[in-house]
């Protein structure tokens, strides 16, 4: 659609190149590497634990947006090979969410599980964030091809639609976290991105496209 046939063919081959996935893998680990370097060199500011927890949250949200962007991008540009990257981005989202939650549990709560349970119940934004994280776990656990076969494409697809709820919960988590200072600038940016990415799907669905079902059955054939 947006691309000329030549540039699309070129980009298709770039995305399909065998070096693309390993490169993406390394790129996705860079934020974590930078944070670890920051811990080692004491460059995370006066409150390194807070910087660590918040940066890991930021990266979870960024990767979630990237994951959700794959399908619309593919539809807008016709770059069907982008689908190869979606699973890795989704798994990295779950990985950063795990790091984010672990950093909170270790540095904020010092791994006192009774305190964590009380904190999750007491603070709505923690509850919402934890819910989003817990919802990610079955998605990560069923990300491999055989899981699609076991579950059946339709059921697998329905399960993985939970990512839409996860995205909305993640935005709400960020919104409530910033509500204390009514500092909503960045929240608005992420909310707008998620709104466009989910809104596009609603728009497609309202036009009766069976895109997702087709994709599901295709993957299931493996």
């Amino acid at each position, binding site marked *: 659609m947006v691309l000329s046939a030549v540039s699309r063919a070129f980009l298709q081959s770039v995305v399909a190149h065998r070096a693309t996935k390993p490169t993406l893998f390394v790129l996705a680990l860079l934020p974590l590497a930078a*944070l670890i370097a920051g811990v080692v060199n004491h460059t995370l500011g006066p409150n390194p634990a807070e910087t660590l927890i918040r940066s890991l949250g*930021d990266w979870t949200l960024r990767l979630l947006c990237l994951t959700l962007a794959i399908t619309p991008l593919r539809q807008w540009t016709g770059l069907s090979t982008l689908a190869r990257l979606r699973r890795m981005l989704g798994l990295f989202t779950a990985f950063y969410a795990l790091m984010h939650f672990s950093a909170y549990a270790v540095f904020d709560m010092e791994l006192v599980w009774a305190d964590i349970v009380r904190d999750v119940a007491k603070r709505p934004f923690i509850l919402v964030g934890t819910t989003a994280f817990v919802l990610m776990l079955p998605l990560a656990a069923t990300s491999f091809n055989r899981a699609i076969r076991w579950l059946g494409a339709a059921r697998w697809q329905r399960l993985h639609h939970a990512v839409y709820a996860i995205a909305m919960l993640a935005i709400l988590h960020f919104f409530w976290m910033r509500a204390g200072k*009514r500092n909503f600038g960045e929240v608005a940016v992420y909310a707008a991105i998620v709104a466009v990415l989910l809104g596009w799907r609603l728009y497609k669905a309202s036009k009766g496209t069976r895109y997702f079902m087709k994709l599901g059955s295709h993957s299931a054939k493996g």
Partner: protein
Amino acid sequence: MLLLKDRGFVHPIASEITSQAVFTTRRRWLAAMGAVAAWGPRVAWPQAAITANGAALPGARSTVPGALTMEKPTPSADASTYNNFYEFGTDKSDPAQHAHTLKTRPWTVSIEGEVKKPATFGIDELLKLSAMEERVYRLRCVEGWSMVIPWVGYSLSELLRKVEPTGNAKYVQFVTLADRAQMPGLRSSVLDWPYLEGLRIDEAMHPLAMLAFGMYGQVLPNQNGAPLRLVVPWKYGFKSGKSLVKIRLVEQQPATSWSLAAPQEYGFYSNVNPKVDHPRWSQASERRIGEVDLFAKKHPTLMFNGYESQVGSMYAGMDLKKWF
């Protein structure tokens, strides 16, 4: 190192204090890490304001009971780059980056209301009004972190006595500077400006309630509330207004900014109290800023921030859950 046991506070030994050389080396590392730091906006921290070149403001060791905690002071670099001063932005690193626009001279503070001798004092008069004392106070932020800061100044009561409060003066309201030309943060609607705070008159007259003009032996950096601020060590940090311009003695409990913005979250008293949680989080413990060990155990928060024996009697018989 994972410290499994709380060992209480530890007296600083000379070798524990970050030397200038090590500090400078770390800053060089910071510069070297610039490229990596660009990965996230929060990773880049402003340069410290307290340096060897700052204007000195010495103070004699205070003799006020409780004014000199033996705990290890927070590194000055942290205390001057990790600040809540929303007039310059809501991120902790904003004040250090933006407060250079604050003009601290000329500066006046007017005192009015229920006083026999209302007056306006220039900053130079205030600096000479009483002998400068150094006081090392714990500072507990309502957000769950804390510092130990050597302030320079004198008891607020020294100033209040000069204007002779009348019998009707039951409370004191503090008004801080709100000037759009100097303070970029005023464009945000986080709070209604100017920032207002208040104390009961007996709290304001307590010798530990302090007017600070300096810290770490130097004139206050702008981001820490120059040229003068309140320091009330037994209350959450936000009670200690920065860059004061007006002090009003009044008969009724005055409005305060945070209790106007979120009355269910922030009460007028806001005494540090580990047993009364903030609606959003527990207040039972605190993270001490400047403890570089990421796995350092949090400190238990103390009643009245550890000043109970000095200030507790002012609240005898009060239900502190109700008057939070």
